[in-house]
């Protein structure tokens, strides 16, 4: 378990680094897909099988295909200057980000995580998540389906040349 965690952690962080540093957007997108699958692996070792499958199907499948499709539709080449030009962004942004992660790490190290609770049988299966989703979270679920319709209409409206 610890070995699997170490491998996944290295893979996730390395692929995230490729995403934010590589010049070619296609390589970035493929590294992001790799990162998403590594995170699905984390979900598996954390007993969330259903969410892991959703991650692979929805994220690494659908969303990544959408992003790759747009990159290839626009025929984007490797960026000549991938980094932002502003002095503020070039130097202050990495420092600020490092300070932010340091702060988060300090908070994680100092604060004890909540005491482990008893996991009910069938934890993380589609049945247990679906039970929650269609009982306590029924109205949020409906709102989210409305959000998807709005996003779909908005995407068509924005990307269409002439209505």
């Amino acid at each position, binding site marked *: 378990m610890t070995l699997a965690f170490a491998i996944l952690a290295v893979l996730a962080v390395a692929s995230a680094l490729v995403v934010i540093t590589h010049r070619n957007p296609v390589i970035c997108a493929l590294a992001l897909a790799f990162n998403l699958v590594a995170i699905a692996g984390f979900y598996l070792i954390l007993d969330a099988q259903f969410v892991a499958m959703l*991650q692979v199907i929805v994220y690494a499948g659908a969303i990544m295909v959408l992003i790759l499709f747009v990159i290839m539709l626009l025929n984007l080449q490797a960026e000549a200057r991938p980094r932002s030009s502003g002095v503020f962004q070039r130097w202050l942004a990495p420092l600020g980000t490092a300070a932010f992660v340091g702060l988060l790490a300090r908070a994680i190290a100092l604060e004890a995580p909540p005491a482990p609770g008893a996991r009910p049988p069938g934890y993380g299966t589609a049945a247990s998540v679906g039970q929650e989703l269609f009982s306590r979270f029924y109205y949020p679920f409906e709102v989210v389906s409305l959000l998807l319709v*709005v996003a779909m209409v908005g995407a068509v409206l924005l990307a269409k040349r002439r209505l």
Partner: protein
Amino acid sequence: MVEPRLVLLVSAVLFGLGVAGVLLRRGAITILMGIELMLNAANLAFIVFARQLGHAEAQVYVFFVMTLAAAEAAVGLAIVIALFRLRETTDVDDVHLLRW
């Protein structure tokens, strides 16, 4: 059993890399990818706490975040396509009409 703090640390590092990607890159699509990295880091933290507390509730939140990410990607990429039609570029440094 994996130590939850280590997973939270990985999640924090991934979030930081996402922030760095959004701040440092010029391409609009790579900026969107940075946002996806941040959303995933948050999801990972949700799953760690769900497991620690033994609730399936946080897994439902992850489900909602994924739906939101899909909607965001669709609208964001549509904006990128509209921008490309207008300016023949996806470089955000060339789109500075609203910048003071």
